[in-house]
């Protein structure tokens, strides 16, 4: 590892980040992690004194949106600080080296830091056609991921593509794209930070947590850190009071939309999406989708492109029907059809009974026309049969 100890302060100052900014950043991280304010001093101390972990950033089937989200932070806070916290030894988008040099840097880093470097993966890994859909320097993404992730201390999958396959894995998934966890089983520590793109603050917090405490934050069944994905958007939403009060946007641009009512009826997936958007927001807390009047599309959930669409409807359609078909209409018609069938069946049945009875009455004129279940030939004994006939008539 590089000896970068104690120079962090100078580095930050060189970038115009004051001590005050830095402490503010640390308490922001503590708050995001749900830790008491007092911990921010511990975080600050750790960040200033502990050795920088070595980090390798891999990009596969992606749009570089996560890198963008991370690097284009409008204020020199999260990204700058985190870049100074880390020794980023390989990142195709931002590194100076290219071609063979870059490949050599990657190989060198892995070798020199076996078992102690951190990998951030952006983008999904195609497994179709022997991995031919995505190759870098003659190696498939799958090969690279196996080599690099295999010897890592931890792998952080940023964005829904790296975490769960994301857009490339959307039906019909032509490249056989998988998330990192699925494509490379047996990773020592896997942290998934889904969302489209990842929220840079969550990535920063995960790394700061690791540097401070020497371990990784607690995660759920899908390897998502609980501090960021422990609650649904709906359960922390600023519009939740409108949901409970039954005040909904019925149509974009209507009166309710203008005063900020709940977006449930225009397809909001906040109730089925785990992420801390309402608390952290985006672009240094400038705003977030629901805050500016757009329903949540559930971008942080696995397979959201298939499972959360249509984005502006409450539910997915029924297979075999038009994607926008209304389940409730289909259900209502089906229920009405059942009712109609039974009414018709009943009328026919009763009509036939009446007809039979009349005919029998005319033909043999017994004192009392049979009305109950008539003789039942095949499965009763003749005696019982006869008795039944008697009983019924």
């Amino acid at each position, binding site marked *: 590892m590089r000896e970068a100890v104690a120079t962090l302060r100078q580095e930050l100052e060189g970038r115009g980040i004051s001590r005050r900014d830095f402490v503010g950043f640390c308490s922001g991280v503590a708050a995001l992690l749900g830790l008491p304010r007092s911990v921010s001093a511990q975080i600050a101390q750790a960040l200033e004194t502990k050795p920088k972990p070595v980090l390798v950033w891999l990009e596969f089937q992606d749009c570089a949106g996560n890198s963008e989200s991370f690097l284009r932070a409008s204020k020199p806070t999260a990204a700058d600080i985190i870049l100074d916290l880390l020794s980023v030894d390989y990142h195709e988008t931002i590194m100076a080296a290219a071609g063979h040099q870059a490949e050599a840097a990657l190989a060198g880093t892995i070798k020199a830091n076996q078992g102690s470097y951190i990998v951030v993966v952006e983008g999904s890994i195609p497994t179709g056609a022997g991995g031919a859909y995505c190759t870098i320097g003659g190696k498939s993404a799958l090969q690279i991921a196996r080599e690099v992730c295999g010897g890592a201390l931890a792998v952080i999958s940023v964005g829904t593509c790296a975490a769960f396959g994301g857009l490339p894995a959307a039906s019909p998934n032509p490249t056989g794209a998988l998330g990192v966890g699925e494509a490379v089983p047996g990773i020592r520590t896997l942290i998934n930070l889904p969302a489209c793109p990842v929220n840079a603050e969550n990535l920063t917090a995960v790394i700061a947590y690791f540097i401070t405490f020497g371990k990784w934050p607690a995660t759920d069944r899908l390897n998502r850190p609980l501090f960021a994905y422990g609650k649904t958007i709906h359960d922390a939403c600023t519009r939740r009071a409108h949901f409970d009060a039954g005040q909904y946007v019925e149509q974009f641009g209507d009166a309710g939309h203008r005063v900020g009512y709940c977006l449930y009826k225009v397809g909001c997936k906040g109730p089925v999406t785990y992420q801390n958007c309402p608390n952290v927001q985006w672009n240094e807390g400038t705003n977030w989708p629901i805050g500016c009047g757009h329903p949540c599309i559930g971008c942080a959930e696995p397979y959201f492109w298939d499972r959360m669409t249509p984005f502006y409807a409450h539910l*997915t359609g029924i297979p075999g029907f038009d994607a926008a078909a209304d*389940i409730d209409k289909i259900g209502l018609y089906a229920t009405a059809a059942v009712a109609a069938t039974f009414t018709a069946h009943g009328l026919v049945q009763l009509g036939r009974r009446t007809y039979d009875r009349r005919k029998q009455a005319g033909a043999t004129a017994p004192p009392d026309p049979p009305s109950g279940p008539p003789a*039942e030939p095949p499965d009763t004994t003749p005696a*019982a049969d006869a008795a039944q006939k008697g009983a019924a008539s």
Partner: protein
Amino acid sequence: MAAEAHGAHEGPLVPVYVWDLVVRLTHWAIVLSMLVLTVTGIDIARPFLHGASGTAGFITGYVRIVHFYAAMVFSLAVFARVVWMFLGPRRSGWRQFVPVTRRRQRDLIGTFLFYIMLRPAPPPAVGHNPLAGLTYVAVFGLYAVMILTGFALYSVSAYTSYMSMWQVLLPVFHGPQGARWLHHVVMWLLLGFGVHHFASALLTARVEKNGTFDSIFSGYKFLPRDRKPDDA
């Protein structure tokens, strides 16, 4: 009482006690809770009970709470009924549902032929006829789907309560949105069944004249004196 009313013009038909108290109580608990669950469920899916704009009501909030209480009644009633299939008297037992005997398997077809009017009379039955019994197996399966998807949906917001254990079900349903979809679609299947069930109960009562419709209130059906108890 009811016996006289029917016996009067049916002559030798005799009342037979088929539905014990547990069967009738759970039946009606399921019907009533399902009605409440359906109305509140539709409002949860596409709210139509609106808060008057400008007032701070808690309408959807209350609707969800009513849904959850009705869900408790429903789940417990279904659970009790299933347990009763193994503990209760024979007419409530699971053999009424799953056609394990040769006889019931044969009557299954006979009943079907009767229903599609290819046979003049149904094979004799006392409790559920075999076809109805088999249908109820499917219906109980749908109940199970409703209960499991409902619990999974509930677990989404049950952060600290023991109900959060049902989160293990979420992946099975493709996440909460998948659970919601299934919960919604199966509601319509159950509504379709409900209409069918109500209509055929009326129809059977009219055509077979055996008091089937009233039996779920009183417990008695009116059957030919000789119909043996194992005409199950």
